[in-house]
């Protein structure tokens, strides 16, 4: 046996202690010890120093942090709800009634879960918009944008699967309509829908599937992906905000206490708002699900109303599949297209970018409204072209016209002297306005039989 250099070992008790507690010794006083633990956790999540100007609330609006807070609220209220909920068609609705009438604070917890879940969808979209309009996806942050889009889809998926669980009329038909969109996917649509529903229609198997997705698969996937997302933010740093025509302020401050104190106060304010709102506004609950009776009108979950409205105007192959798929592909490829590093950290890229974004938004709203009205009262492609199958007359033809309009708009904006980036931003804003308008029309202006109505009538 070779002679190994001998080291004087400390006594066994000391070795045992060191094996449990990592050296160096923690401070002797309680406050110091607690701070050490907290600080190392904080610095695990954040860099030691952060950009001073990026701390301004009007740059990030704390949207990413708010999403984490909402996720934590959803996990904690969700775990409580698990103890009061039975996922079967016979018992689910009874659980809801019990939550409202028997369980102490049952209504508050359900309201908190419901409103936080819905707010999360809105905040996730706002977070995406903030990053887009300040060029937050520029190198080296491209992939973090892609992950962010993935997280947005997961948030929507979590909301959608949770939507079914109350098993009331609203839940049943929103999920029926929502999953029927999937059937239009060519080739695999039927199989996919059948697998998701566990049968030909929404039923007991669907509730089991959605329950498993909602409480285990989606939250776990979000946790894993969001860890990666935040780690990349920590490594890549956030973009430094910049005023127009001024050099960026590159000064830095320590994360503790400057960033952490803001985060804690912000979280507390939002918690108060959430609990306050949930104390007074009840989550909707309609009568128990009745598979024989569709409500009039039957609407999908509110964040799918833009899609459902699109379906009013396009053949399903285009309305439910091609246009959304192209939109998603466009969103994912945005950071990989040409970048203008000059615009990083500047709201809306440049002075020209600002008014163009504003004009594009207004134009998008007006054009979409005009198109919805025209399609309701005047346009009738299948009637004018009765000899064509409807996927051509109500699909390819209007879709091709739409593409021409968008390409024309892009060229028009470019001819006004904007860069590729500004023109792309104008196009994005136009499409965003169109999507928001469609969502608005679908939610508020569609009444019985999905006819256009005025909401105050």
């Amino acid at each position, binding site marked *: 046996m070779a002679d190994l250099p001998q080291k004087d070992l400390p006594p066994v008790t000391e070795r045992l202690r060191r094996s449990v507690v990592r050296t160096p010794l923690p401070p002797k006083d309680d406050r110091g010890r607690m701070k050490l633990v907290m600080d190392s956790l904080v610095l695990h999540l954040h860099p030691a120093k952060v950009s001073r100007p990026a701390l301004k609330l009007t740059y990030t609006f704390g949207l990413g942090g708010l999403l984490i807070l909402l996720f934590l609220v959803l996990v904690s209220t969700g775990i409580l709800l698990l103890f009061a909920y039975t996922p079967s068609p016979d018992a689910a609705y009874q659980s809801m009634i019990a939550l409202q009438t028997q369980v102490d604070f049952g209504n508050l917890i359900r309201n908190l879960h419901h409103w936080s879940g819905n707010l999360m969808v809105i905040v996730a979209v706002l977070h995406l918009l903030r990053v887009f309009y300040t060029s937050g996806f520029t190198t080296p942050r491209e992939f973090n944008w892609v992950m962010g889009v993935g997280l947005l889809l997961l948030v929507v998926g979590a909301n959608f699967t949770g939507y079914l669980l109350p098993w009331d009329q609203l839940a049943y038909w929103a999920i029926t*309509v929502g999953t029927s969109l999937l059937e239009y996917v060519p080739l695999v649509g039927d199989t996919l829908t059948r697998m998701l529903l566990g049968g*030909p229609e929404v039923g007991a198997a669907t509730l089991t599937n959605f329950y498993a997705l909602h409480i285990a698969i989606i939250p776990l996937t979000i946790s894993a992906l969001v860890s990666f997302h935040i780690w990349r933010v920590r490594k890549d740093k956030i973009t430094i905000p910049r005023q127009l025509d001024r050099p960026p302020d590159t000064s830095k401050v320590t994360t503790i206490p400057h960033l952490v104190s803001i985060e804690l106060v912000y979280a507390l304010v939002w918690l108060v708002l959430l609990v306050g709102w949930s104390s007074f506004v009840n989550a909707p609950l309609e009568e128990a699900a009745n598979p024989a009776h569709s409500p009039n009108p039957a609407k999908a979950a509110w964040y799918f109303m833009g899609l459902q409205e699109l379906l009013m105007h396009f053949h399903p192959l285009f309305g439910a599949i091609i246009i959304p798929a192209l939109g998603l592909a466009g969103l994912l490829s945005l950071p990989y297209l040409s970048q203008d590093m000059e615009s990083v950290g500047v709201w809306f890229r440049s002075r020209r970018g600002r008014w163009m974004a504003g004009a594009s938004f207004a134009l998008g709203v007006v054009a979409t409204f005009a198109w919805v009205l025209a399609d309701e009262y005047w346009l009738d492609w299948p009637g004018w072209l009765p000899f064509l199958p409807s996927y051509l007359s109500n699909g390819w033809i209007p879709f091709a016209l739409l593409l021409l309009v968008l390409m024309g708009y892009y060229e028009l904006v470019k001819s006004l002297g904007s860069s590729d980036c500004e023109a792309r931003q104008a196009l994005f804003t136009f499409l965003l306005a169109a999507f928001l308008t469609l969502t608005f029309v679908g939610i508020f202006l569609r009444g019985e039989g999905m006819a256009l109505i005025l909401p105050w009538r």
Partner: protein
Amino acid sequence: MNNEEITRRDFLTLAWSAAGALALSEGVFVGLRFLTPRSVEGEFGGEFNLGPADQYPSGTVTPVEAGRFYLVRLQDGGFMAIYRRCTHLGCAVPFDQASGQFVCPCHGSVFTMDGEVLNPPAPRPLDLFALHINENGEIIVDTASPIEREHTDPAQVVYLG
């Protein structure tokens, strides 16, 4: 043996990768089979005996709640079993006795008594279930799988005798 073509390391990498891919595909296969929907006996999806055919007058539509379909007897005496699920987005389509049409409450699709689309957005006629009249003159409807059709066709109608 020619060492330049494939080294020991190449071979082992390939072999282990193949073993890994095989294990992965086995996992996926087992998972998918596990998640495959099961059909439950004696529920929607089974056969329905609706009794003697002559008890249904011509020009009537009879809902069969448990089977989720309508037994339609056309004016000319022909039978059809029409699945109540709208071909647009899956709503349950009620039959409007007053107008003699199927009117979807969700998105305004209108269908004739035999399921033909009168008003979009529905992309195709209402689906059918296989229907036959047995030797005792009883109507048998099999709800195992809906029959999709692009157009209505007289061949889809079943007549007595």
